[in-house]
């Protein structure tokens, strides 16, 4: 099967795309030795800053540097405005869906989503039923994963409404590029992103009905793969970074232990999954949470960002319905496309999937991070056969999608520069208004031909530019 890829820098006829003109001119005029030296500098600086990533399933618990590529991913501003509108539209609909789901369930009554698929879903939290949240917002911080198919059109691959990570790489990649190559930023207008921590703090504060609420970042601790990011964001926002043991609940209020005695906490930016938040209400073995937190939350005395129970909206089994949600709640046509999805829970779709496994990507509905998925075209016959058995054993746990091409972007590799596949995760903040900083995190699959961009699977990152055109 011959596939055509959309390249971000070069059109099909080999012509340079206009928004890369300045960069290409600069690249041509910069001696390769200087570039190589700068790349070594970048590695050193990242190491020194401690920007590392712990791999799961790695016996040694290796901390690995996420490779940073110095060729940026650039998006023309006119194109970005459409992507931005599409992301905002999508996250608004998802928040309305969550508010509806935990109250009147109009969308279930209208028969648009089968009730059992939502209510029997493990991510649907009874604790949220009937609970009123300030502004009716559930996902204050969202990440929308986008890819571009062969014709260059954007598709949403998945929504991340639980504890989306990666924004620290977006910010650090930009800082690094500005430090190494300041001339690039003088030559053209690249939209700034350094106000993200301010927007985040503003969003978190606006999630509370109080005038000046106290905010903390709750981390599972230094062994978490994203600990660097938790510490980074707390520092950038100027708020406390806490672990579960630093907080306690008394009379349905949350307090932080400090050397000056207990201090009330109003908003918790939690980077901890629902199941670990309160060992008295959820997973009893959790050493990471705060006993009693759920009671304080349900009494309305503390805000959790994101809310509990957002996972039911970004579950891969619910994903196929997001375009319907946009029509149902906003009465608008979706700006961004969904990838066509077969639900293995439906017998007729299951047989189609099983018959076409070599062409499809199959994902676990509960999986994330690129673990537990099958990329048909890149798998051996034996791997496909083994995966088919897993699907047959638990069909409801899988969905399948056509293998998307994923656009490419020139990337430094061992022997020079070569195209590698990329995706894009813009971060959407929902508060008084819904906002997106221009661009997002671009992840790149560094192995030749690979379509898996997750950092746990050997992916790297690039600075993402929105270039005024």
């Amino acid at each position, binding site marked *: 099967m011959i596939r055509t890829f959309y390249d971000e820098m070069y059109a099909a006829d080999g012509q340079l795309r206009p928004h890369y003109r300045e960069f290409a001119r600069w690249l041509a005029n910069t001696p390769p030795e200087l570039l190589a030296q700068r790349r070594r500098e970048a590695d050193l600086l990242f190491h020194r800053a401690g920007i590392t990533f712990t791999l799961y399933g790695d016996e040694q618990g290796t901390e690995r540097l996420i490779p940073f590529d110095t060729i940026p991913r650039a998006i023309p501003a006119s194109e970005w405005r459409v992507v931005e509108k599409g992301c905002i539209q999508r996250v608004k609909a998802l928040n309305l869906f969550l508010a509806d789901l935990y109250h009147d*369930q109009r969308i279930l009554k209208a028969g648009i989503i089968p*009730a*059992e698929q939502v*209510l*029997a*879903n*493990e991510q*649907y*939290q*009874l*604790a*949220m*039923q009937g609970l009123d949240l300030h502004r009716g917002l559930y996902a204050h911080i969202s990440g929308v994963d986008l890819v571009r198919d062969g014709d260059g059109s954007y598709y949403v691959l998945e929504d991340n409404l639980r504890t989306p990570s990666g924004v620290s790489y977006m910010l650090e990649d930009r800082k690094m590029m500005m430090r190494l190559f300041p001339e690039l930023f003088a030559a053209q207008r690249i939209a700034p992103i350094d106000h993200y921590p301010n927007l985040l703090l503003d969003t978190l504060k606006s999630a509370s009905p109080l005038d000046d609420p106290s905010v903390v970042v709750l981390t599972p601790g230094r062994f978490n793969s994203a600990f660097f990011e938790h510490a980074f964001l707390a520092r950038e926002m100027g708020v406390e970074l806490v672990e579960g043991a630093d907080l*306690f*609940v*008394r*009379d*349905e209020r949350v307090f932080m232990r400090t050397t000056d005695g207990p201090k009330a906490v109003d908003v918790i930016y939690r980077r901890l999954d629902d199941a670990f938040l309160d*060992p*008295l*209400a959820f997973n*009893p073995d959790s050493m990471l949470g705060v*006993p*009693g937190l*759920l*009671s304080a939350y*349900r*009494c309305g005395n503390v805000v959790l960002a994101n809310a509990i129970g957002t996972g039911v909206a970004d579950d891969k089994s619910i994903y196929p319905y997001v375009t319907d949600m946009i029509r149902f709640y906003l009465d608008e046509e979706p700006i961004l496309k969904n990838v066509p999805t077969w639900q293995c829970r439906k017998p007729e779709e299951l047989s189609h999937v099983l018959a076409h496994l070599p062409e499809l990507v199959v994902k676990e509905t509960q999986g994330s991070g690129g673990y537990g998925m099958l990329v048909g075209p890149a798998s051996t016959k034996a791997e496909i056969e083994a995966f088919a058995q897993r699907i047959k054993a638990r069909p409801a746990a899988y969905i399948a999608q056509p293998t998307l091409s994923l656009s490419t972007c020139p990337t430094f590799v061992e022997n020079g520069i070569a195209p590698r596949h990329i995706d894009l995760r813009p971060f959407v903040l929902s508060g008084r208004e819904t906002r997106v900083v221009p661009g997002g995190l671009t992840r790149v699959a560094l192995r030749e031909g690979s379509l898996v961009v997750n950092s746990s699977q050997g992916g790297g990152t690039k600075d993402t530019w929105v270039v005024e055109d």
Partner: protein
Amino acid sequence: MRLTISHETAYHYEDQVRTSIQYLRLTPPDNERQQVLCWALDLPRPVRAQRDPFGNILHVLSLEEPHADLIISARGQVEIDPTCEAEHDTQSPLPFLRFTRLTEADDALRHFAGQHCGPRRDRGALIDLMAALHERMLYRPGSTAVDTSAAQAFAGGAGVCQDHAHAFLACSRSLGVPARYVSGYLFDNDSQHMASHAWAEAWLEGAWYSFDVTNQLALPERHLKLAVGLDYLDACPVRGMRRGGGYEQMHASVLVTPTLQAQQQ
């Protein structure tokens, strides 16, 4: 039937507990079957009642002062209608189709449920299932622990009321019938004795029906309900955490007396 209940749980710790917090589900709710005439918790400090995610009455007791003893007592009077067969509900029962770690149905449980119910999904089928589970899983205190799952207890062929309830939930859910865990008290007519107990409820034709595997009772005539949930962890009367304290001794006593009523007829 009117019952007067007194339930005391006393904890003694080897060392001082620095702080502790407990979720208490020790207050029965009013429903079609039971009417609470009066009920009071006696706690070391006053605590407001709230509703938990399942609608149960929850008290959250947090103690920040060092303590070596903790006494939690509940007492009150309840009127039970022993003829009431089922409880109606306006909330969707669908969330009670989901499995939890404690109620996961493995192949053995699925097979067992299928074997005893076949294509039937009515009350009669679940009564057969209840009887079969009673026969298959001997009532043997000490054979399981609080964190034993339905599958483990079923494989071991023994358990207590909690394990019976979990196994029933796993089977019922595997058949596509929503089912929930109930914690409460059981009144024993012969010994004038009442004990903490657990049983199951399944959703049939728009209402929750009781299935007490341990006692083979499909009518909760001697049961007082405290709380419901997906499994033991959601509904148990006391779930707490503490810092310090070391080894713990716990003593619980439940006393019940049927209240003599003036003849109404």
